[in-house]
């Protein structure tokens, strides 16, 4: 067996294989990360990036393969082993305890003590020092749930540094950040790099890869499909390696022919679960036959806005007018009956009942429609016939209507939801994050369906965190920030940068004045 010197690498993962029931999540993956570099792991959702990093951090254990840290083979059986090997991970979904304070979160697991007691004073002092050293300012006594996402991420980074991490893994760190916050994060990362830290960045955003990293490992379907130096590549090449074919980044569509206004939202105020205002006097309108895109970073009131429009959340003040009728206090059911469809943000939470068979899911919301029910009994035969038809029309796979919702893939679950919502001839469709977590094929299908709905004269309100999706689908773009609309524009009159600034809280007129 040949001996290779891995000592110049901070991390080497060799032949890592991990199987989950029915999936080969990592298939003999090799990863080489040099000391002191920023290394990107890119790939589509489901490519196995997070699985790979979870093994490096000891959250799950590889079935095969070896891990070397600074040239020495290490068994990483749990996060404690990883922490000991000076590896830290900032997860995509922050691993913070909401009800605890910043300092409690940071020291958790390695608490300083004085006698039998937890030494809060010392913990606070140590964190202040760390904050200062790395330029990560944050109030140690704030409660996590009161902090904005950007701040929470800082807490995550300090948490990792507090444990003395030399190797930092960041999983999709910019997914929840505004472009400006993203830049700040990159400054922080470069600063950390200067102080000798090695950084592994999981992402699927290629511009970020180009902006900050030295080298890239590309993954697809559990395998490594390319390892390149950032300086020697370009986004197109990376994209090809990611998806294995040329990507169609634009959606073909005709010019829209908007009709009369079908939805008006006036000075809407909505609170989020903890009673804080999330939508703050927002107004917008949607016409028949157009797609209005709401661009924004997650958590700026989009969820509350769509829930209020569809009747799932109480409105504090303001009005919602649909087809000329004030529907502000109507039940979700009544809105549905009036012709409002809804493709919800969280398809497993709202859109689908996992333990219902597909044919039951196809009638959710219309189960008491006279077509499917005589008032007391369900017309099961009719429901099944209807479902068979939809399964064929939308190519749901496998085409078995008896299957439970949970046994479909994410893309097919979304097809069931979209098929259902279209089947009842809505006049307005509220669409939230329609392609989150889907593969390229399913995304294309959903996008085409939305365009064809528009062309049939349906008004569409589209909420998406993917700026690209907003640009390629929308006829008008609104940017939302902290529950307010920052400006309205159209895709041909603006740039992603401009919309990005709006998403960060700058009013459109201010941006244009400055320019």
């Amino acid at each position, binding site marked *: 067996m040949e001996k290779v010197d891995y000592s110049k690498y901070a991390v080497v993962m060799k032949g890592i294989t991990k199987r989950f029931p029915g999936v080969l999540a990592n298939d003999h993956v090799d990863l080489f990360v040099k000391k002191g570099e920023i290394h990107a792991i890119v790939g589509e959702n489901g490519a196995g990036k997070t699985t790979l990093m979870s093994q490096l951090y000891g*959250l799950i254990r590889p079935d095969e393969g070896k891990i070397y840290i600074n040239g020495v083979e290490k068994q990483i059986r749990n*996060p404690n082993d990883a*922490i000991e090997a000076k590896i830290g*991970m900032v997860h995509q979904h922050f691993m913070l305890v909401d009800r*605890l304070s910043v300092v409690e979160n940071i020291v*958790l697991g*390695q608490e300083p003590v004085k006698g039998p007691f*937890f030494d809060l004073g010392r913990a606070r002092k140590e964190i202040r020092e760390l904050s200062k050293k790395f330029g990560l300012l944050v109030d140690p006594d704030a409660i996590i749930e009161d902090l904005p996402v950007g701040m929470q991420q800082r807490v995550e980074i300090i948490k990792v540094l507090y444990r003395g991490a030399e190797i930092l893994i960041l999983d999709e760190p910019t997914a929840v950040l505004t472009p400006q916050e993203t830049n700040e994060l990159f400054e922080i990362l470069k600063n950390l790099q200067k102080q000798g830290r090695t950084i592994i960045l999981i992402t699927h955003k290629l511009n970020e890869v180009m902006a900050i990293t030295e080298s890239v490992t590309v993954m697809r379907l559990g395998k490594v499909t390319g390892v390149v130096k950032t300086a020697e590549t370009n986004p197109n090449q990376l994209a090809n390696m990611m998806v294995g074919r040329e990507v169609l980044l634009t959606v073909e569509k005709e010019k829209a022919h908007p009709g009369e206004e079908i939805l008006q939202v006036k000075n809407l105020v909505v609170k989020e679960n903890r009673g804080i205002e999330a939508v703050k006097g927002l107004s917008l309108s949607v016409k028949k036959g157009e797609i209005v895109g709401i661009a924004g970073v997650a958590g700026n009131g989009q969820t509350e806005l769509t829930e209020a429009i569809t009747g799932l959340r109480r409105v504090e003040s303001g009005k919602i007018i649909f087809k000329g009728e004030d529907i502000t206090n109507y039940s979700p059911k009544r809105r549905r009956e009036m012709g409002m469809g809804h493709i919800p943000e969280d398809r497993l939470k709202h859109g689908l009942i996992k333990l219902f068979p597909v044919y039951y899911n196809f009638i959710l919301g219309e189960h008491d429609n006279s077509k499917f029910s005589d008032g007391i009994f369900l017309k099961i035969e009719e429901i099944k016939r209807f479902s068979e038809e939809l399964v064929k029309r939308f190519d749901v796979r496998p085409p078995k209507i008896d299957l439970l919702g949970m046994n479909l893939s994410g893309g097919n679950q979304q097809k069931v939801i979209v098929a259902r919502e279209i089947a009842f001839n809505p006049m307005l469709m509220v669409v939230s994050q329609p392609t989150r977590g889907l593969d390229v094929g399913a995304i294309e299908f959903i996008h085409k369906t939305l365009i064809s709905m528009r062309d049939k004269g349906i008004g569409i309100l589209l909420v998406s965190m993917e700026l690209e999706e907003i640009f390629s689908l929308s006829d008008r773009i609104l940017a939302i920030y902290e529950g307010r609309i920052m400006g309205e524009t159209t895709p041909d009159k603006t740039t992603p940068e401009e919309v990005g600034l709006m998403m960060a809280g700058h009013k459109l007129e201010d941006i244009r004045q400055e320019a």
Partner: protein
Amino acid sequence: MNEWIQAILNVFTNPTFYKSTLTQSTPLILAAMGGVFSETTGVTNIALEGIMLMGAFGGVMGSYFTGNPWYGLALGTFFGLAMAALHAWASIKYGADQIISGTALILLAQGITGFALVELFGQPGSTDLVRSIPLVDLGSFKDVPFFGQIFGNLSPFVYMAFASVIFGWILIYKTKLGLRMRSVGNNPEAADTLGINVYNVRYFGVIMSGLFAALGGAYLSIGELGQFTTNMTNGRGFIALAAMIIGNWNPVGAMSASLLFGGATAFNNQLQSQSVLNLSTNTQYIFGMIPYIITLIVVAGFIGKSRAPSADGIPYIKE
């Protein structure tokens, strides 16, 4: 009307009411503290009722066989710990539905105590009288008017109850273990990524709940009465659970709510026995339902103002 005002005044000016409030609250405080320990770490424990019952029975059994009520206390505690361990095993290791597992343990406790009652004492219903834990005699303090009558001769369980509140509050809010308990109860995954053993912390919380609830149960049997009777806990485990909810899963809050419930019961009992009212015997049933109705109203009114630990009742299963 006047006789009612007179009766109520009589109750409030009588030290017996205050002493009775303390003794009625004692089992509730202890059991509620058990609930706080378990649920702070994220494991719902409706088995408190069953654990109390086992604690009560074990207390009498130990005292009966050894003649020493302290051994009884030890045996009752052991029974409680064993019950809690079962609940912990099912809900932590096997991700059981915690409410159903709790229900099972309540039935199990009823079955075991009923079975053992017949096996050991030969008849259903109640055990022989046994020696109970001696009261704490404060000597000459007893002669202090009013206060002496309240505090002069209390069961050590009463002191234990309040000590458990202080202990619980310090442990949960001032120690490293408490920080870990709170983190595991709110976001076990986050705690796990920091190398905290979620299962062990949860085992600790649930088993401590067994300790406290068993003490609460033992008070009922060998605290003053010196006897076990079938189902003598009579829903106190559930009232303690309600006290914990109203107290916002906080030891001090749970204690306050327990005192409220205990006070209501004491008030009831004292009021019924007021001769000015001249009540017929079946009014005891009307008075008897009052604590339960209060619990209903309070639980319905306080929800929303109190927040359970985020991961309470949700099994944590890795991978």
